[in-house]
């Protein structure tokens, strides 16, 4: 069985912004503009974060530049009340889904407050142990199923994450109980330095769905229309009792794994250059709008300016917090009084020299 044939990469718009001919009601100018806006914002966010890290204003950061279409296309397919479980690289998705920018920055600044989503938004803090969040998405969606709502979970994870046992256990659980969850894989070809061929023998990730008898789909992760379209389908399926779907969004990170990583140690960065030229998710929408005669450079400039302004405001907000309040360390370990924690807190605050 040729899996490349069985799981062809779904594409609605080519690298140079032309329609592939595939039919979808989601290829509209309006949507294109919305996608563009979010992707531009995300890219500027990402670059801002990298800069803040370079200036020592936040800590280690994991950039996502190049993966905007995957994250925006999928996040915009979700609705309020749905649950989102990101990794450390999914701030385009969480921001688009309504996370607080200030908090995203705070998280990387080493402040626990940054983990808290805005009220009413079910956005989980990035899961650091790889793949473990897949089960939380499964569990929260299972809860929705039990409550009889039509809410669903979406969970983000990378190609490397597919090697962990939790990936397998999560997909298996959700298939057995027909849980409404969308497993959104961003296959960017690398887990830090380890290339896909060392991560798995299979040529696709989508085919792993066959092990659970659930739908699997491969999508051009740099084509925001295709990502949106396929995620909508998966979400609809989940909402209407059709169970989970595995989506493989084939993409690429242009930069380093994190700001402490040096990609030239393990890969030729000219590939990133090539992809940026031919397959960039943002340029693609720009070209699409051009081909459709809907490109408006004033509007685009505006989009950029508004984004910068919003980001600057968020950074100002973030920088009001120098460090977290020390009590936050103690106050949310338990919901009840537990003496070792209480005593330690007391010692910390009231016995002079404990407090740095």
């Amino acid at each position, binding site marked *: 069985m040729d899996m490349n044939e069985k799981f062809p990469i779904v594409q609605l718009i080519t690298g140079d912004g032309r329609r592939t001919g595939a039919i979808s009601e989601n290829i509209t100018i309006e949507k294109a503009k919305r996608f563009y806006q979010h992707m531009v914002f995300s890219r500027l966010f990402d670059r801002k974060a990298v800069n803040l890290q370079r200036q020592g204003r936040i800590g280690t950061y994991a950039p996502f530049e190049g993966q905007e279409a995957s994250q925006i296309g999928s996040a915009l397919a979700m609705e309020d009340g749905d649950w989102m479980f990101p990794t450390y690289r999914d701030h385009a998705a969480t921001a688009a889904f309504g996370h607080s920018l200030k908090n995203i920055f705070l998280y990387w600044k080493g402040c626990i407050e940054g983990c808290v989503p805005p009220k009413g938004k079910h956005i989980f803090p990035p899961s650091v142990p790889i793949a473990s969040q897949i089960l939380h998405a499964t569990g929260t969606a299972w809860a929705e199923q039990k409550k009889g709502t039509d809410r669903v979970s979406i969970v983000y994870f990378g190609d490397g994450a597919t090697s962990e046992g939790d990936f397998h256990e999560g997909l298996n659980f959700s298939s057995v109980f027909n849980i409404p969850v969308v497993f959104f894989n961003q296959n960017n070809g690398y887990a830090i330095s380890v290339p896909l061929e060392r991560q798995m023998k299979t040529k696709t990730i989508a085919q792993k769905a066959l092990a659970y008898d659930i739908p699997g789909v491969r999508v051009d992760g740099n084509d925001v229309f295709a990502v949106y379209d396929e995620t909508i389908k998966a979400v609809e399926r989940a909402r209407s009792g059709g169970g989970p779907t595995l989506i493989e969004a084939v993409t690429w990170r242009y930069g380093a794994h994190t700001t402490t990583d040096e990609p030239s140690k393990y890969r030729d960065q000219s590939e990133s250059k090539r992809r940026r030229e031919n397959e960039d998710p943002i340029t693609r929408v720009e070209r699409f709008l051009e081909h459709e005669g809907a490109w408006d450079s004033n509007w685009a400039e505006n989009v950029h300016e508004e984004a910068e302004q919003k980001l600057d405001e968020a950074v100002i907000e973030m920088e009001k917090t120098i460090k977290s309040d020390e009590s936050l360390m103690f106050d949310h370990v338990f*919901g009840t009084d537990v003496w070792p924690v209480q005593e330690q807190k007391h010692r910390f605050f009231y016995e002079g020299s404990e407090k740095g």
Partner: protein
Amino acid sequence: MSTAVNTKKLTIVQAITDALREMLAEDESVLVLGEDVGKNGGVFRATDGLFEQFGDDRVIDTPLAESGLIGSSIGLAMNGFKPVVEIQFLGFIYPGFNQLITHATRIRTRTQSRYTVPLTVRAPYGSGVRAPEIHSDSTEALFTHIPGLKVVVPSNPYDAKGLLISSIKDPDPVLFLEPMKIYRAGKEDVPTESYSVPLGKASVKRTGDDVSIFAWGAMVRVAEKAAEEASKNGMHCDVIDLRTLYPLDKDAIAESVQKTGRAIIVHEAPSTGGVSNDVIEIINDTSFLFMRAPIKKVTGYDTPVPLFTLEDDYAPDEKKIYRAIEEVTRF
């Protein structure tokens, strides 16, 4: 405590079933999940009859995957449910260790209480039932060191029901360890209705002025017997059932040793790193000047729990405890 209430005679495992039934009936958000907890009623019959009474939606057989089980229960717990997860034997919890230590116990802190994990994980533990390999671990100390987790161990049917109800009602993750050796060791009067035994409080099982013996689970009865024997020879012991291993009942520990000046801690787990050492720490902190002899430990060895022909050699017994009583009183 049980004057005007209706009671029935139950074993520990029946008291556990009773607590689960009570909670399932009382609170719609309570779920029971695990391997073989459904039709089969659990390999120890701890969930017997619950599937029939509450159905597959509430009493759920899951695939054989402890990380999946704990991890997805975390999700359920964050979204309105109170899952009570059965791990078939404590020795099988380790594949789910990551979900417990990096998620279940940290989510409240990480999200500053936006999300919480009112999850109870039940697991039979300890040796003494001639079980196969890995089925007899007493690794409670691996869990008391995890911030954000409470660890509870009943030693009798009354406490089993009351502590389990408290654990399920607790707003945070609780590891509820069930001493399988005494699962069916005898029936006791247990109130038919719902009641709770508070977490974090020890229980004084016997009083004496010479030595304080601290134990939990199946070791409580063994300690009591040794204390009985010792009292015949003029050595009188407090026997204190710690009941909750995190947080320990510091006041009860201090009060007892400040009276006796001598302490013995009994547990089945390996000596090094055992919860015994947390008790020693508390005594050191609170009662240094009261102590008349080094504290003694009667514990398992720093070896894997042996296969069952040697399990009685491994575990603390009356004789070993008796000898420790002699040693601390003669010091």
